């Protein structure tokens, strides 16, 4: 084979009772992402460009947990990670915990191609991004309704769990009082 490409948009307990229209929309977006990479590879473009551009598309698509559509941290913000690696030379670039980089995979590639290091974290990664013409956004950019709801549910579950485990630690006497 001249070229080959595989993509993913995340794995997990993807419920099967999603409406057909939603399933269709997801498959349509996956097909669009695939087409971006196919066009690049078909015309002799590099695997690096195919991987970066496909992932940019998926980062910009609010359906997927990356870039816009990223999940919420405990504190209600967004912290993004990305990595890219070229197997032939084992060059790699990775970043973790960035908050204002619209397309983290593009920063990871800049790390791979411009730094002697492999990994940058948090504020350092943000400062490294300042050296390049990279699109920066504020945290609101990453907001999506469905992730916000998931975050609220997670906080609620955590509170219930804490309350429950808190009760377990009480003595029978305290427990009685607890229920005062």
């Amino acid at each position, binding site marked *: *084979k*001249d*070229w*080959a*490409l*595989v*993509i*993913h*948009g*995340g*794995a*997990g*307990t*993807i*419920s*099967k009772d999603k409406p057909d229209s939603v*399933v269709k929309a997801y*498959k349509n977006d*996956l*097909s669009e992402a*695939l087409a971006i*990479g196919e066009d690049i*590879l*078909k015309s002799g473009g590099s*695997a*690096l460009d*195919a*991987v*970066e551009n*496909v*992932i940019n598309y*998926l980062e910009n698509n609010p359906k*997927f*947990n*990356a870039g816009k*559509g*990223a*999940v*919420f*941290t*405990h504190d209600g913000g*967004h*912290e993004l*990670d*990305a*990595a*890219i*690696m*070229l*197997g*032939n030379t*084992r060059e*790699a670039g*990775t970043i*973790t915990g960035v908050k204002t980089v619209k397309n983290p995979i593009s920063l*990871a590639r800049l790390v791979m191609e411009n730094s002697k290091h492999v*990994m940058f974290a948090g504020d350092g990664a943000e400062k490294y991004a300042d050296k390049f013409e990279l699109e920066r956004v504020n945290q609101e950019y990453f907001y999506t309704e469905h*992730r916000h709801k998931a*975050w609220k549910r*997670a906080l609620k579950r955590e509170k219930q769990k804490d309350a429950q485990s808190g009760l377990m630690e009480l003595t029978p006497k305290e427990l009685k009082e607890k229920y005062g």
Partner: protein
Amino acid sequence: TVGAVAVDKEGQIVAGTSTGGMTNKKFGRVGDVPIIGSGTYASDVVAVSMTGWGEKIMRAVSGHTVSAYMKHKPASLEEAGSYLLEDLLNKGEAGMIAVDKDGNTYMGMNTLGMFRGAADSEGNREVAIWE
């Protein structure tokens, strides 16, 4: 989490992954994606991108395990993927995409589903979510 792996006409073989991490994440927790050799890895034989339960994927050093299994067993990409997803990792923990230097593609999971797609120069093309 989103990912892509590709091999091009020049034989360049690349893996990439990007993620928003885990809902309700605290204390700067880092998952498998930015850990080279775990959620993202490429060698001269295979490129791998993982998704799922980061802590489990990291403990299995997943991407590197697939490459080492192929090189030293030796084994096919299919066999290496099954080894990782069925022998090392548990049900419900991960999905994996990979491509080897010959353009063989792999999409496997031990979860209920994985948003995925594959295409190659021989006209094979697939998009799927569940089995």
